């Protein structure tokens, strides 16, 4: 798979960090992706990791959000660097180029970038094997479907979201090779409104349910709300993404339709990185949060997939053992 190329895996990284005492105060800076803190999703997961570092490691923390057009990503990193924050975490693959440049300008500092590979000696790539988690979601959905028909709604047709699609389809086909998976993206790459269009998510999912799909997986940010609504209206199921949405979604009528969620533990990634830094780890490598280290996985809240736990675990084991390589591109 494309996402797992090179570097160590997380299981090794933390171990490299022995529990040495920190030299000086730990000041961690973090720059969010567009949307910023409080998005109840990706950015907030990263923040959770940062906050954990604050409470557990006693780190002084500072987090910055970019402007709505994202034009100042590099400058935020520089301002954190100038204010002596070290390490600095950049959240989102959009930071890749900027992190590379800033890391070269500040060779003495350590950087990490979520969802993108290391591209400088002092940059750590925090990668997530979304395709692997999505594969499990596909396995779960294929086992649960009675219609032999699934759906996938992607918010923006970027390569990141296409990883989710690829894994999901592969997982579903691994269980039922003839299974039908409807796929719909809401907006093209570069138009991020697809993550904020619940109405469009609803229309797309509605169509899938009307055509006979009984479980729809979304990787569409806030547009996923529409997917859940369509599922509730059609009395069918949906699969959430990033966090355990059965818990984070407060609408009680929507919670029961969320069969499971594909977890992407950005919080773990961020926290572990900070911890490793404190332990003296240096950049230049990637850390991949995959199934092996539970960097991705499925949530079980609601107990809806408990009955197929063994099948999921088996699939997971196959991936961890390398028997199955999950494609990262559809």
């Amino acid at each position, binding site marked *: 798979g*494309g*996402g797992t*190329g*090179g570097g160590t895996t997380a299981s090794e990284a933390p171990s490299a960090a022995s529990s040495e005492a920190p030299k000086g105060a730990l000041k961690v800076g973090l720059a969010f992706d567009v949307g910023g803190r409080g998005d109840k999703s990706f950015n907030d997961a990263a923040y959770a990791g940062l906050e954990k570092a604050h409470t557990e490691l006693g780190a002084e923390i*500072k987090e*910055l*959000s*970019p*402007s*709505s*057009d*994202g*034009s*100042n990503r*590099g*400058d*935020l990193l*520089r*301002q*954190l660097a*100038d*204010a002596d924050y070290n390490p600095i975490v950049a959240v989102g*693959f*959009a930071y*890749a*180029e*900027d992190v590379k*440049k*800033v890391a070269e*300008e500040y060779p003495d500092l350590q950087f990490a970038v979520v*969802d*993108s*590979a*290391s*591209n400088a000696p002092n940059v750590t*790539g925090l*990668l997530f094997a979304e395709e692997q988690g999505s594969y499990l979601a596909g396995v779960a959905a294929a086992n649960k479907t009675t219609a032999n028909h699934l759906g996938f709604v992607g918010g923006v*047709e*970027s*390569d*990141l979201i296409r990883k989710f699609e690829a894994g999901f389809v592969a997982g579903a086909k691994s269980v039922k090779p003839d299974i039908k998976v409807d796929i719909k993206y809401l907006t*093209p*790459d*570069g*138009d991020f409104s697809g993550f904020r269009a619940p109405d469009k998510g609803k229309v797309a999912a509605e169509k899938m349910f009307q055509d006979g799909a009984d479980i729809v997986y979304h990787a569409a940010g806030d547009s996923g709300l529409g997917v859940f609504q369509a599922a509730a209206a059609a009395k069918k199921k949906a699969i959430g993404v990033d966090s355990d949405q059965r818990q984070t979604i407060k609408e009680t009528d929507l919670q029961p339709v969320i069969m499971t969620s594909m977890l992407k533990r950005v919080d773990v990634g961020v926290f572990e990185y900070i911890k490793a830094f404190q332990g003296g780890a240096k950049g230049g490598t*990637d850390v991949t949060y995959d199934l092996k280290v539970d960097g991705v996985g499925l949530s079980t809240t609601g107990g809806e997939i408990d009955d197929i736990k063994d099948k999921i675990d088996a699939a997971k084991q196959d991936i961890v053992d390398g028997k199955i390589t999950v494609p990262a591109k559809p």
Partner: protein
Amino acid sequence: MPAGLNRALLTVIGAVIAIVLAIAISSVAITAAGASPLAALGAFFDFGSSPRTVANGIATFLNRAVPLFIAGLAVAVGFRMNLFNIGVEGQYRLAAIVAAYVGSTFTAPAPIQIAVIIVVAAAVGGLYALIPAIMKVTRGVNEVIATIMLNYVAINLASYLVRGPFSGQRAEGALNTTTPELPESAMFPNLNFIFDWFGQPEPTRGGGVWGFLIAAVVLGVLVWAVLERTRFGFEIKASGLNGPAAAASGVNPKKMIIAAMVLSGAIAGLISLPELLGDKGAYTSTFTAGLGFLGIAVALLGRNKPVGIAFAALLFAFLDRAQGALQFADVPASVITIIQGMIVLLVVVANEVTNRFALRLEERRAAQQLGRNAPVEVAA
């Protein structure tokens, strides 16, 4: 011309009052939000403590102003003729990707390489603007609708191109799609040496102060000269001020619509080049968007005149730069947008008010004159 001087003075005073008022209103909001307005004000002027951060801050500020200025110019050219080109957004996006791709397909000495890229960008922007222009002159399609719709088309087209035909090699493990890397000869030399002149450290930020600033200044002068000094500019002005009169004077309105729209689009095509040639070196899916819409505000604030637009762009960029500094000061960064919106509104309101004030002065002068002059003689 003391009257003209008075007017100019009043305009400046009006603008200053408007800006102060915008800051005051924002201060109320900041206070309500539990933060300190003084801290916020400080943040706007806080360029950091070391010479290096100051240099970086200045570079950031100028680098933001340049594309805003070009965007403002692009919009203004249309506005001069009462053509509302909302399509600058789409025009520059499409121009950016095509220019980035074409520039990456060959290598030539820097001046030639850069010149070709500039020409391609302008040509693509101009051609894309030609579509709504032709729709307007042949079928009477309102340019506002056409450009709104074509913006969406451009965004999708760009996305298609960057993923498909124009996609390039990306770094291992990177997820953003990109066009092929531009060769070194395509990169516009930076202006960091200016800092040397003043004995200051050069900015370290990627690309430093983008050299395209010079090109933008040249463009500004060119646009000014074309609009204010040439026959073509005169015809644009005439068409904008009074279409029927221009037509009766031999100005072909259809040709003018096409020319103004294409010129506007061609300038729009250049919006992305500072960033592309100064820093990024490729068009990626995370390209800076929205400059076309900001350009509308900048153009209007600058009264569609190059010098005004330059001031407006600098003001917007100055405010935008404080994004990070405000957050360090625990002030919600959204106050920037609020201040920008308010300045746009209040500056024009102030302008109206000062205009009326000047009229009132005139009236008073007239009344005094009456007092001095002998009353009109009454015959019969």
